[in-house]
């Protein structure tokens, strides 16, 4: 069955450092992959989409890579700030249609 894995352990980093989060998937050949941010008590908010023919995508301090051979996406936040503390979710289309499935998310804490 299709599976999305994100590191369930929280990631703690110091302000100013680069945070790197991992999303691995199995039994998928997704045409694209999305990353979302979720703050406590709020709905997720879309951050970035990367397509299967794109190796890397950037948006301000965010960078996403997509390796379809390794079946992995890496999500980087450079020059991290305490305000970046949140849960980050990766999402993939499932079943050949537009149904979107989410990973469990990784909690990021950035210390001042």
């Amino acid at each position, binding site marked *: 069955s299709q599976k999305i894995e994100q590191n369930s352990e929280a990631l703690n980093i110091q302000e100013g450092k680069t945070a790197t989060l991992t999303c691995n998937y199995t039994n998928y050949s997704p*045409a*694209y992959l*999305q990353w*979302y941010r979720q703050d406590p*008590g*709020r*709905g*997720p*908010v*879309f951050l970035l*989409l990367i*397509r299967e023919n794109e190796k890397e995508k950037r948006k301000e301090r965010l960078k996403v890579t997509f390796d379809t051979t390794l079946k992995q996406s890496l999500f980087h936040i450079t020059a991290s700030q305490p305000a970046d503390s949140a849960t980050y*979710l990766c*999402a993939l*289309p*499932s*079943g050949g*249609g*537009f*149904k*979107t*499935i*989410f*990973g*469990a*998310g990784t909690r990021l804490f950035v210390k001042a």
Partner: protein
Amino acid sequence: GAGVSQSPSNKVTEKGKDVELRCDPISGHTALYWYRQRLGQGLEFLIYFQGNSAPDKSGLPSDRFSAERTGESVSTLTIQRTQQEDSAVYLCASSRRQGSNTGELFFGEGSRLTVL
């Protein structure tokens, strides 16, 4: 409205009662999703509506759960004979799907359901 609107924001009910949760998507968004998020967990897919196509109900956990959508507007998620395990935040999202457009999902703030 400007965003996805969900109501009620909080609902406390007794075991065995029925509940209805409502979602108002962004105008013009043809796709609508329902997800369940238990405390500290990820998003669990429940159901997906796309225009006038038959909904994808593959994530509904039991026949106590059902959802309807009128055209491309409001959706209602109904949980019958609620159980304590149904306690969770129910999130609705909408998306502008056109052809191969891989539009982002816009989420509401969720309806927090507590079953006593």
